């Protein structure tokens, strides 16, 4: 008996209450009005002008980093978008450029020098000093052993053919000049870049 009466009251109460609610202008939307759209995340980010690393359209990009540069704030690249001032891309970016953030932070980014010994089936982490000393030794020994000062005709040729180099094609001109100087000072001729592929 009591049970059902309560049920009955609940029902009529419901109608009553709801009507009064609506009269008071409630619909539970108070919550929504308190809401805001997602905060604009670049408000305090640092903006750096750069050039897309991929193709030769060389779109201008804006790199946004967190942190205001304060000594204790370790800044992190958190967003990249097109530079609207750039005469070619005018702020646009292709699917690669729009995803530059993911290549900067790719799990595939190398963190430390690694070395693979002859016959080994693994890379092991090494120090820069180990890697560079070993490289210098290998290169010098190879150069000394195989440097050609004169060819069979007795002409001075000063070339080193047994070590070759492929130069990057996304590095700066400054890196390129330095690389040219170093490679040629060794007498390297087996020297190429990505121009063809």
């Amino acid at each position: 008996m009591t049970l059902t009466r309560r049920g009955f009251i609940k029902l009529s109460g419901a109608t009553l209450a709801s009507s009064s609610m609506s009269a008071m202008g409630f619909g539970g939307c108070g919550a929504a009005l308190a809401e805001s759209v997602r905060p604009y995340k670049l408000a305090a980010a640092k903006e750096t002008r750069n050039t897309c690393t991929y193709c030769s359209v060389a779109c201008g990009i804006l790199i946004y980093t967190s942190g205001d540069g304060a000594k204790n704030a370790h800044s992190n690249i958190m967003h990249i978008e097109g530079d609207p001032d750039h005469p070619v891309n005018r702020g646009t970016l292709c699917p690669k450029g729009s995803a530059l953030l993911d290549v900067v932070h790719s799990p595939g980014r190398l963190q430390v020098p690694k070395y693979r010994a002859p016959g080994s089936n693994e890379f092991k982490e090494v120090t820069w000093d180990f890697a560079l000393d070993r490289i210098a030794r290998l290169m010098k020994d190879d150069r000394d052993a195989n440097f050609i000062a004169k060819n069979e005709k007795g002409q001075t040729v000063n070339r080193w053919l047994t070590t070759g180099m492929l130069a990057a094609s996304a590095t700066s001109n400054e890196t390129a000049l330095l690389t040219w100087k170093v490679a040629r000072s060794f007498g390297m001729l087996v020297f190429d870049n990505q121009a063809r592929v």
Partner: protein
Amino acid sequence: MTRPPGALTRNDTVTRINHWITAACFILLTVSGLSMFDPLLYWMSNLFGSGQWARGAHPWIGIVLFVSYTGLVIQFWRDNMWNRDDIAWMKKIDRVLANDEEDVPEVGRFNAGQKFVFWSMALLIPILLITGLIIWQTYFWTWTSIPTQRAGLLIHSLCAIAAILIWIVHVYAAIWVRGSMRAMTQGYVTPGWAWRHHRKWFRSLVATGSNGPRPNVVTRETRE
């Protein structure tokens, strides 16, 4: 509970428990369902903690209701079979409503009104279950096309409203006919109650020397 001597059992314990499980589910479903049906009633979802909870609980309660109501069907279907007397009773419904049942035909265990409630629920609840599954986003949204789901929503709502209306009749009747509530809470009625409201049922109990809820089976042997 004190049961007066001579009292007749109207609903035995299993039936009563089964009924109240169904009732509880129905009320919860009504509350959560209406909160999603009309923003006026959205506040009712707070009884579940939040709209998210109301939405989440509703279909599960629905499944319990379906199972539980199936139990009631198994127990009640025979006593709810329609017969000639029901039509006669219906013809006198005005007298019934006026609380004057003297020249209203004698009624068996259930009158036509109760049978109507019983069978409409038996029809609506399966429809609610099926349409309910169709619109159950979490698990079945890929099972049917969106137009089907739209139809499902509409049918589900309409059936739910119908069920609620019938339920109101059911509840009010229980309040109006004194003693009915006790019949479903403590489970017994007085002989007088039985004589007044379900005289044919009462006679059958007396005749077979049963005190409810169903007459004893009388065989040739027992008869003689």
